[in-house]
């Protein structure tokens, strides 16, 4: 399973973990993963600990998610990035749009 979705802390957090390759092959699955965030206005955590590869389509998908969710979530955090992933996000200035931990 390249994508794993799970609510935590009584629905106050939605964790989406992506394993291996994060690219356009996950377009539908990724959209699906945040299509129902519940009414708790959760914080979304994109867990990239096992994301080995990503390309610009993944960045596009993250931006689409941000647009789609708007204020229905408290915030979107991108967590557990490997150093290379982190630098790709930084170069794309995602730190201005997401909380990167």
């Amino acid at each position, binding site marked *: 399973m390249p994508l*794993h979705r*799970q*609510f*935590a*802390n009584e629905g106050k*957090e939605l*964790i989406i*973990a992506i394993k291996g*390759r994060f*690219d*356009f092959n996950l*377009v*539908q699955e990724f*959209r699906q993963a945040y299509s129902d965030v519940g009414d708790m206005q959760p914080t979304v955590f994109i*867990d990239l*600990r*096992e994301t*080995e*590869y*990503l*390309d*610009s*389509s993944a*960045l*596009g*998908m993250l*931006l*689409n998610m941000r*647009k*789609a969710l708007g204020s229905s979530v408290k915030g979107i955090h991108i*967590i*557990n*990035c*490997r150093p*290379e*992933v982190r*630098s*790709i996000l930084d*170069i*794309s*200035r995602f730190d201005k*749009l997401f909380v990167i*931990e």
Partner: protein
Amino acid sequence: MAAQVGAVNTASTRMLILYDDADIAHDLCQLLSPLTSLNVQKLVVTEEFRVDLNEPLPLVLLVLRKQPTQSLTPLTQLVLEHQTQVLLVSPEWETLTQLQAQFPLQIAWPWGQQFLVSWLQQRLKLHEAEENIERLWQTLAWHTARVEREHQLVEHIFENALSRNFLEYPRVNTYLTPMSKFNGDLCLISPGPLGNLYMLMADFTGHGLAPATGALPLSQAFFAMADRGVSVAEMVTEFNYRMSRLLPNDMFCAAILLELSANGERVNYWNGGMPAALLINEQGEVIRRLKPAHVALGVMDDEEFDSRVTSFRAPSGSSIAMFTDGVIELLGHQHQFLGAEALETLLSTYPSPEDFPQIVEELERFRGETPLHDDLSLAILSCLPTKLVQATPEHDQLVIPFQLESVLGPDYLKQLDPVAQIMTTISQLPYLSRHRTTIYLFLAEAFNNALEHGLLGLDSELKQDADGFSKYYELRQERLQQLTEGSIRIMLAFDASRKEVMIQVSDSGEGSPQYERVTDFSDKAYGRGLELLRQMTTDLSWDHATRTVSFKYGL
């Protein structure tokens, strides 16, 4: 294992009749013939008699009509040195009296016949019992030696299996005391690849060797998965899978697994059946209880298993105390249990990591000399940046330069994922391995540009909104399946002396691969790939004539 126990030895007891009167000796043999477990030998008392002592000789009947002329010293030596029982049998009162001092056990022949038989019966029984005890002793000694040896082997295996355990990590204090040689509790610590830290505290039902055995597969899974940086939910799912298959029905494994992020702020945990761990702030207040939300590992089937984790933010300088119920139920020297409340008070009194020895001291003072009745495990983790940085091993390692080129026609493009395949090939190589994510990104961007725009003629404008984004990739799939001609060439060269990668991607198409366009850096959902290439690579160029994009990247 050889069965030594229960082999009943029916060997007979050796008895020697030393005589000077053949008739009495003969009658004695007749009399004693029903005592089948007696192995009777007869020997005439001659000038010099010798006794074969290769086998033990517990009994001697000395049958004398008159006091012998030769010395009886060899016989008295036997009594002294081999605990041989000598019974003097004689029909003459005189002989009996004369030899009273040397041989106090005497039978007056023929009057004492009945007594002799019952005395021998007693002796035989006693002898048999002694032999049994001796055999049991030997068996016991053999087993003790064997168990000792086996324990040594298992200890060795445990030492090896747990050699990776990072118990010396300075941000964790532990007090781990097994009740017997083997610990049914488990406290594992391992750094993850992202500077994060994993900690597992587990308590198998029971104590001693059996539960400790379960620790082997659990620890192996733990360390392997920690190396990969797997999430807590996935780890516990795997643990449960292993435990439910391994453990008998009446055995399970309570466990708390937690992960502290590299910055020391974020904690994810899963608690199945362990006492609530405590989050304690610098002032010693318990600010959160990490209660068990699940049943222990090894109880649920894969389908029923609930891997949901809980997460929270730990204030800087706070600490998490994990412990097994052995600590709560620690029996004190006044026969009272420690209890959860007293433990909490103790932990609150000493919230600083420097004070950990005080906690241990108090626990030991409470216990006094009382023997443990369960394994004890207490571990306290300080929530601070972990400072676990992954080492980058390769320095001036000498590696070969190489060049890789692949020209891909429609069939390959339709059926394969060329970039993924190239990555599988090169991601194990020195230098390249550490940069695989970045190299993948470059190859993917250049390849997708060539395919999507060059060969398939797709327009990124479509990706403006979320629906268009999906539509774009549906269209990509559609057009790719219809592709009948054209090719893409991928070339990757590694310059070993400059530690530099050069990448070229060409296509045979007609569409515009966008390199000539200027993209501004708004939050559009496209155009980022090109911008990433611009920022991260050097010598980026697009040759319109050969439709080749080319760039370099220093490792």
